[in-house]
């Protein structure tokens, strides 16, 4: 069972980590939610840039710098198209989604939030979309509100609505897809509701951008963040999309070179967005790699990627349902890319190690979402997350390895 991709082999062949003659032969990689593997196209783009096109950007007066700048800024335009932003000025290169969220908290929150205001998150957030707001709460006396988890594993819509009702929420910030469970939040509806209540909206798109097209204008959000390494790109680079009218009201996050218009000893004037938020020499090669990753995803096309994932999810759900003692965490009305589960009698970390012994790579632990797992009465789960290189057989190997772990532990730890 495998969807046909016309005129090319299955994309798994594009990822050298899976080379059957290489050091990881036989690897079943189900940890793309933590970080995705890299196709040759990305690896070669980064390597080629360092080998033949590298120079610092923006200020060099020589050809190589100009070419590097063109390539770097070209990716900004590419990302704007990828997210359907209104302008490439709305695309800020950051280290990752975590830095993007911290930038919003610092540069927007410090200026625009005051004691008595509230920030609304949901119970399904990654720590990176909780802690920055807690710090702001403690610094500025704002209120941090949490929309509850619904019984089905989604967000409690009535609670979300109730927490917007008094008009104090100035920012609603929530995940597009919950990293610990795979729950897809109805982000367009939540955004419309929050905007109607007078709040700005930020969306953590880390788990979404590799799985579905994102249109920030259609969503109507003010901020959208993601990390390149979950989109088959390099580590160390991410994107903060910000609506230009909002970015223009924000102060810099960091200061230094490349973000200033004039500097005197008594005063500094900052550049307009996006440069205002990109102090210092950025991860230029990372940006080039991100561009190659977007090209790569585009070459497969969303119809194939979405159909492939849909088929994998259906197969995975059926296979995991047949494993006795395996309990899948609910993911609301819609699941995407992630299965999070526990197995009776086997601690998630022990299970993770035994799966590794079977060459199945998964994530075990709290997935940087301790509050969400606590809502389920858990401290850890095993998480299998999908990439476009996965095949149905990967779930067969996963289930077989889970059964092996059960055989090992059940009689001895019962």
């Amino acid at each position, binding site marked *: 069972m495998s969807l046909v991709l016309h005129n090319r082999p299955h994309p798994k062949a594009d990822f050298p980590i899976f080379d059957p003659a290489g050091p990881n032969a036989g690897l079943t990689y189900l940890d793309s939610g933590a970080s995705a593997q890299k196709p040759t196209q990305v690896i070669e783009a980064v390597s080629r840039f360092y080998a033949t096109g590298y120079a610092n950007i923006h200020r060099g007066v020589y050809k190589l710098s100009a070419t590097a700048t063109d390539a770097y800024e070209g990716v900004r335009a590419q990302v704007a198209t990828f997210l359907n932003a209104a302008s490439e000025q709305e695309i800020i290169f950051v280290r990752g989604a975590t830095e993007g969220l911290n930038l919003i908290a610092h540069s927007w929150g410090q200026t625009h939030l005051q004691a008595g205001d509230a920030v609304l998150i949901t119970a399904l957030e990654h720590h990176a979309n909780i802690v920055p707001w807690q710090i702001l709460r403690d610094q500025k006396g704002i209120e941090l509100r949490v929309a509850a988890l619904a019984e089905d594993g989604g967000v409690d819509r009535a609670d979300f609505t109730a927490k917007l009702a008094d008009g104090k929420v100035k920012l609603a910030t929530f995940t597009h897809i919950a990293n610990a469970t795979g729950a897809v939040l109805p982000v367009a509806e939540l955004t419309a509701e929050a905007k109607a209540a007078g709040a700005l909206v930020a969306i953590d798109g880390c788990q979404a951008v590799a799985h579905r097209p994102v249109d920030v204008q259609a969503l109507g959000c003010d901020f959208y963040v993601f990390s390149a390494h979950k989109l088959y790109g390099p580590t160390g680079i991410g994107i903060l999309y910000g609506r230009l009218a909002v970015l223009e009201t924000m102060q810099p996050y960091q200061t230094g070179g490349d973000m200033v218009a004039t500097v005197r000893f008594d005063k500094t004037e900052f550049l307009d967005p996006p440069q205002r938020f990109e102090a210092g020499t950025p991860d230029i090669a990372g940006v080039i790699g991100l561009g190659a990753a977007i090209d790569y995803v585009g070459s497969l096309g969303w119809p194939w990627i979405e159909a492939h994932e849909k088929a994998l999810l259906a197969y995975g759900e059926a296979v995991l349902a047949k494993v006795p003692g395996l309990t899948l965490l609910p993911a609301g009305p819609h699941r995407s890319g992630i299965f999070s589960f526990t197995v009776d009698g086997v601690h998630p970390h*022990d299970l993770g*190690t035994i799966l590794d012994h079977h060459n199945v790579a998964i994530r075990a632990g709290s997935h940087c979402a301790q509050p969400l797992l606590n809502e389920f009465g858990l*401290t*850890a789960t095993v998480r299998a997350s999908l990439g476009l290189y996965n095949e149905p057989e990967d779930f067969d190997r996963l289930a077989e390895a889970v059964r092996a772990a059960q055989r090992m532990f059940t009689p001895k*730890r019962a």
Partner: protein
Amino acid sequence: MSEALYSDKILALAARKVARLPKPDVTAVRNNPLCGDRVTLDLAIAEGIVTAAGGEARGCALCCAGLAVLLDDLPGQTLESLPAQIETARRSIAMGVSGLAVVLSVLQERPIPRPRQKCVLLPLEALQEALSSLSTNTHE
């Protein structure tokens, strides 16, 4: 297949029932932020020597086995000797070298993979915290 990490000896240690001390002189609790595991360690002490050790673990097999071994090893040890033993055990687990330390010697029969070293070390961290707590109280 390196499932040998989960040897019969380790699985038996992990399954062993352990218990808290009714009246410990010091208690320390340590959490593993990666998975929420928690180790509670109780020590009874007389004249600088551990006379009894108890505790409980909410954790994986390696963590539970680590606590069981520690509870076996601690009685009779001098407080003075423990910091060096903890350090030796920590280093040898990190290096995957066996046979260097008294503490956790059973677990060191096989190298512990890096992602799981924290599991094995959690009981030792609780011991270190208990010693720090004793030291602080003594100085106060």
